């Protein structure tokens, strides 16, 4: 079942790239693995619930429920990631590893931990529900369960490896500037999610303006290609972006980056949460 494996790979790749960036970006946060685990479990359970409720979700908002649901997930994840980047910059010293033994500092770390779990759950949920639906469909057609397992596990492993390599790559390659590099990767991720969410709302006719594509770069880099999909996930690449998409992308970067650098000013960095 190669085609099943490929679809699983694509969905897992998206999840694992996002997780790779988030995990690389939250390295300084103590006690995070337990919350990452909670996030993964919530995400997998959420995928099952969403997959089972596809019809009900679809019928909401006069047939635009899927768009609104996915847009909400993306925009919420984007806001959480953006605020976490700013928060981490602000609390960089408190959450750095050598200080985490002090009880007070651990409490300070509690905020990004629960947010971290939620972001991971939202990430897994969006693409995970598609894998569940696809697998369910294969069961209905009574295909070979062994083939499905082989394809599914193959796709899962391959997708996870790419994400893992990226996680290790980010950490190794940017040891000196790890905080700046991961902050910016998180900002691009956050902006990409926001623009995808906004594009979904536009496709549901909720934000109807500026929908014509600004350019078409699909001849250069197709979104369906491996590189295109990777850049889509990491940087929000779209081969035919609308003005609304590009505008929301740039605006998100501007807002998060300026919040991050404004909080570096002495009068802000002295305040404690």
């Amino acid at each position, binding site marked *: 079942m190669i*085609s099943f494996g490929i679809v699983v790979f694509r969905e897992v790749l998206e999840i694992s790239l996002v997780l790779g960036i988030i995990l690389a970006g939250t390295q300084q946060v103590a006690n995070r693995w337990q919350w990452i685990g909670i996030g993964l479990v919530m995400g997998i359970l959420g995928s099952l619930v969403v997959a089972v409720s596809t*019809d009900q979700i679809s019928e909401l908002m006069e047939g635009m429920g*899927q768009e609104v649901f996915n847009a909400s997930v993306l925009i919420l994840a984007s806001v959480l990631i953006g605020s976490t980047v700013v928060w981490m910059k602000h609390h960089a010293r408190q959450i750095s590893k050598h200080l985490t033994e002090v009880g007070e500092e651990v409490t300070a770390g509690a905020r990004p931990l629960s947010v971290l779990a939620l972001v991971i759950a939202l990430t897994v949920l969006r693409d995970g529900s598609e894998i569940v639906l696809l697998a369910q*469909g294969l069961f209905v*057609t009574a295909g070979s369960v062994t083939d499905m397992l082989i394809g599914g596990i193959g796709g899962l492993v391959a997708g996870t490896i790419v994400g893992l390599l990226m996680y290790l790559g980010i950490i190794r390659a940017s040891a000196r500037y790890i905080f700046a590099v991961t902050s910016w990767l998180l900002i691009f991720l956050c902006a990409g999610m926001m623009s995808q969410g906004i594009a979904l709302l536009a496709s*549901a006719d909720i934000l109807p303006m500026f929908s014509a*594509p600004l350019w078409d770069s699909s001849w250069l880099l197709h979104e369906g290609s491996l590189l295109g999909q990777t850049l889509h996930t990491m940087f929000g690449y779209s081969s035919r972006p609308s003005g609304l998409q590009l505008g929301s992308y740039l605006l998100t970067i501007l807002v998060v980056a300026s919040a991050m650098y404004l909080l570096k000013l002495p009068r802000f960095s002295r305040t404690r949460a």
Partner: protein
Amino acid sequence: MNKTNILIGLLLLTPLVASAADTPVLELKIKDHQFEPAQLEVPADTKVKLIVHNHDATPEEFESYDLNREKIVSGNGKITLFIGPLQPGTYKFFGEFHEDTAQGSIVVR
């Protein structure tokens, strides 16, 4: 805010007023993991409502990079999409869950 901006703003709003009643509706069927018809014709610069009916028991994902759309159609279910206004040309779409057979295109004239 100068006069030109306000004028452009108003022009952008006009399709909103007109859209609700006269949006053409097109229907598409999925059967045996294939689209029927595999090719749809749509007038240029017009917003169109596309209803996709899935006659298979298995879910499908209607996906199009050209149209920037991605939406799940559950087994024996249907979805509604809004497409356009589009420039003339051919816009491909496919079913992500059965990409080898589920292929189609929208031709805008």
